[in-house]
């Protein structure tokens, strides 16, 4: 099966091309959606087969090289794929969740203009993401890396007639480019250092893992390389300082938010760190930076999420926050925990987004029918929806419990693992743990605030629209149910020993992470069972406090939030306006750049450079204006000049 690896990205590419070129002629939504879904589902099948084979195989790393890409001197880059446990897990997540979301999209995007365009982009995204995951060298990964950025751009800008959508798309791409700048520098520095100092000219991941140690653990160069790569990761995975694009990216259709901006693309940064874990493990300073950035992002984004009213924005900030968790995990050396959380997060967050999509779909439909012009995404217009949409509500609730980290569901296991490592791992710190725990509490609060505002309480939707509210069709609810099931049971892949589990995911991934963790002294946390139980209890307690607060404020006593807001006006406004980060960036970077551009153009190019050029012209003009007065137009003057000239020349010969 390993030689069929190329099929995995090939199917979505094919689907994308077919839909892109012929979609306009096909017109039939079922066929277009079918092609798209089938393409990614085929990839899923191949992925599963590969996974099964790999699970039983003793050799855990397989490469397939399709063709040479660039071969210039010592730079030899191939189109090649790499299958190892890490990429196998990612493949399953991407194609699995991807398939469900494709299916969901058929229902959600029903009747949209440019339906074929949507599926073409979505398949193209799947293709790029799979290239990112499967690439056996940094360059192929970078192709996928930028490719998903492109698709993100295209899909955020799907409703391109909306100014805000265009702005958001552009912002997403440009901010990602800043990250890519770091990624590229990382590639250059890595390639050059390994090559010029150790004679290994390579960008292949396997070879990097093999020879990476030559760079020297803790050396400056490896710190810089990993920091560069991490800059790339902050862009793609929406971490401080480059997270601002993700909330805006909610301008795209909701399934896109679920697939790209929750489950897959934004986790690329985490995956990349996992892919190069050998290098990162060698740079404790970088790891510390990653952990701090991750923790800071987790709490920062969670704090913004507390006060948002747009259902998708809350989820977006929640995603940023959860990504922060994953980075925290990577930063403290808990690679498996990071990937584990990546996976569980993909399940429950995809479910949450799709659920919110289902809600928005219903709201939009109802409001549209009732000719009301309220915002279908504003939670202040919702409420009491659980009666109208029982399946959506149920799945949404399950996922919310999962993300809040209540015991038994997937989020509990993965989050707990991260908290454990950040406190007790030898690269952790109690401050990190504290911040992460606080963020977990906030998460529980705002997620349940979301649930309560949306599904409980009184129905705040316009009266006449009420009768149009109804549950979404099967094509939408089936993916919800499947994802909810995964959100419940996904966690059991990696049950810790203290709860009688066997760390199966960790065992499976150990061929990828184990070596580096051992070589550079990253030890799993050693704690007594009692302490571990205590920690779990504390985490659950914090979550419960959050949930309770939310219940108190939004179900029991709905006037309370307003009172609180009145008390802490300034703080609320800061949170509501996202700590003014966008405004600060505008003032610090965007506007000065624009001003510089205008100045260079109108001030320098036109005035100075062209001034000099035209000035030379004017000087020449002035001289010639004076000199042309000698052109009197009188033939005699010319004749005289000629004769005098002849006299002088002859004189030169005669007397000279």
């Amino acid at each position, binding site marked *: 099966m390993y030689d069929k690896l190329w099929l995995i990205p090939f199917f979505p590419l094919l689907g994308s091309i077919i839909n892109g070129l012929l979609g306009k002629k096909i017109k039939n939504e079922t066929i277009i959606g079918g092609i798209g879904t089938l393409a990614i589902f085929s990839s899923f099948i191949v992925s599963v087969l590969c996974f099964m084979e790999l699970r039983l195989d003793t050799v855990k790393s397989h490469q397939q090289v399709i063709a040479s890409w660039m071969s210039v001197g010592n730079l030899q880059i191939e189109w090649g794929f790499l299958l190892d446990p890490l990429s196998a897990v990612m493949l399953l997540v991407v194609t699995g969740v991807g398939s469900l979301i494709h299916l969901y999209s058929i229902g959600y995007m029903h009747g949209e203009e440019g339906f074929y365009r949507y599926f073409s982009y979505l398949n193209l995204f799947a293709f790029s993401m799979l290239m990112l995951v499967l690439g056996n060298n940094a360059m192929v990964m970078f192709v996928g890396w930028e490719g998903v950025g492109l698709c993100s751009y295209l899909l955020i800008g799907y409703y391109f007639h909306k100014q805000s959508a265009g702005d958001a798309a552009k912002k997403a791409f440009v901010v990602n480019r800043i990250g890519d700048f770091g990624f590229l520098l990382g590639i250059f520095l890595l390639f050059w250092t390994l090559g010029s100092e150790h004679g290994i000219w390579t960008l292949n991941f396997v070879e990097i893992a093999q020879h990476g140690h030559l760079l020297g653990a803790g050396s400056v160069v490896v710190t810089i390389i990993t920091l560069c790569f991490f800059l790339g990761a902050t862009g793609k995975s929406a971490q401080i300082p480059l997270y601002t694009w993700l909330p805006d990216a909610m301008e795209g259709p909701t399934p896109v938010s679920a697939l790209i901006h929750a489950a897959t693309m934004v986790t690329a940064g985490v995956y990349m760190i996992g892919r190069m874990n050998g290098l990162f493990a060698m740079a404790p300073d970088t790891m510390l930076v990653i952990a701090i950035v991750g923790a800071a992002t987790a709490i920062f984004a969670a704090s913004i999420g507390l006060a948002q009213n747009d259902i998708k924005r809350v989820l977006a900030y929640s995603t940023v926050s959860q990504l922060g968790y994953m980075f925290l995990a990577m930063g403290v050396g808990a690679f498996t925990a990071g990937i584990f959380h990546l996976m569980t997060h993909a399940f429950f967050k995809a479910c949450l987004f799709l659920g919110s999509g289902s809600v928005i779909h219903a709201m939009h439909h109802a409001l549209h029918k009732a000719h009301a012009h309220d915002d279908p995404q504003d939670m202040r217009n919702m409420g009491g929806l659980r009666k109208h949409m029982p399946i959506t509500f149920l799945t949404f609730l399950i996922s919310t419990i999962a993300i809040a980290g209540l015991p038994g569901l997937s989020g509990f296991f993965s989050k707990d693992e991260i908290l454990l490592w950040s406190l007790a791992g030898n690269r952790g710190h109690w401050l990190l743990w504290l911040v992460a725990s606080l963020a977990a509490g906030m998460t529980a609060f705002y997620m349940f605030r979301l649930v309560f505002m949306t599904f409980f309480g009184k129905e705040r939707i316009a009266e006449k629209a009420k009768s149009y509210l109804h549950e979404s069709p099967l094509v939408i609810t089936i993916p919800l149910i499947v994802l909810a099931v995964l959100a419940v049971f996904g966690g059991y892949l990696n049950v810790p020993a203290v709860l009688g589990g066997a760390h199966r995911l960790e065992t499976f991934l150990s061929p990828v992470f184990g070596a580096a963790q051992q070589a550079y002294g990253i030890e799993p946390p050693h704690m007594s069972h009692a302490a571990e139980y205590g920690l779990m209890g504390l985490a659950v307690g914090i979550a419960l406090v959050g949930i309770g607060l939310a219940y108190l404020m939004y179900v029991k006593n709905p006037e309370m939030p307003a009172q609180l807001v009145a008390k802490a006006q300034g703080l609320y406004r800061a949170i509501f306006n996202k700590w003014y980060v966008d405004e600060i960036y505008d003032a610090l970077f965007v506007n000065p750049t624009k001003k510089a551009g205008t100045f260079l153009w109108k001030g320098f190019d036109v005035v100075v450079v062209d001034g000099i050029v035209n000035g030379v012209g004017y000087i020449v003009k002035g001289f010639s204006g004076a000199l042309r007065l000698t052109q009197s137009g009188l033939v005699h003057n010319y004749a*005289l000049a000629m004769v005098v000239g002849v006299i002088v020349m002859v004189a030169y010969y005669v007397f000279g």
Partner: protein
Amino acid sequence: MELLFFYLVALVAILSAFMVVKCKNPVNSAISLVMTFFCLAILYVMLYAPFMAAVQVLVYAGAIMVLILFVIMLLNLGPEMMERFQHGVVGGAIVAGIVMIQAVMFVNRGEMAGISGDVTRDQVLEVGHMELIGMKLFTEFMLPFQIAGILLLIAIVGALVLAKKEV
């Protein structure tokens, strides 16, 4: 004897040339110029270049001067145009004087460094000047000769176009 004759002819040539410059009436100038040309033709004969003398008379004194006279007559330049027929006499004289002095000095100081040929005067008399010129013109100078022909053709066309009434 020969010298005397030369001086005589030269005197006439200079005088008539002076008349060209100094006559108010262009017709008089033209006639004087014809005189100069004839004098030069005589000198050419003295220099054993009879064919050149013939051409001088035919082309210059004949064709060109007739053309000039025709034009003068055609334009019918009245006497009012001759009121101020020249200007800057003193300056012109000085410059022309310098030119002459320079030319003379140039001749005096210079050396004869031309390439001597083998066409002696006896040969000219023996073979005939015209034949010698012809031989040279149609062999060695064939291409320039043809080009000269083209030049004349173009001149004819140009003159026609320029002199046409509506340009």
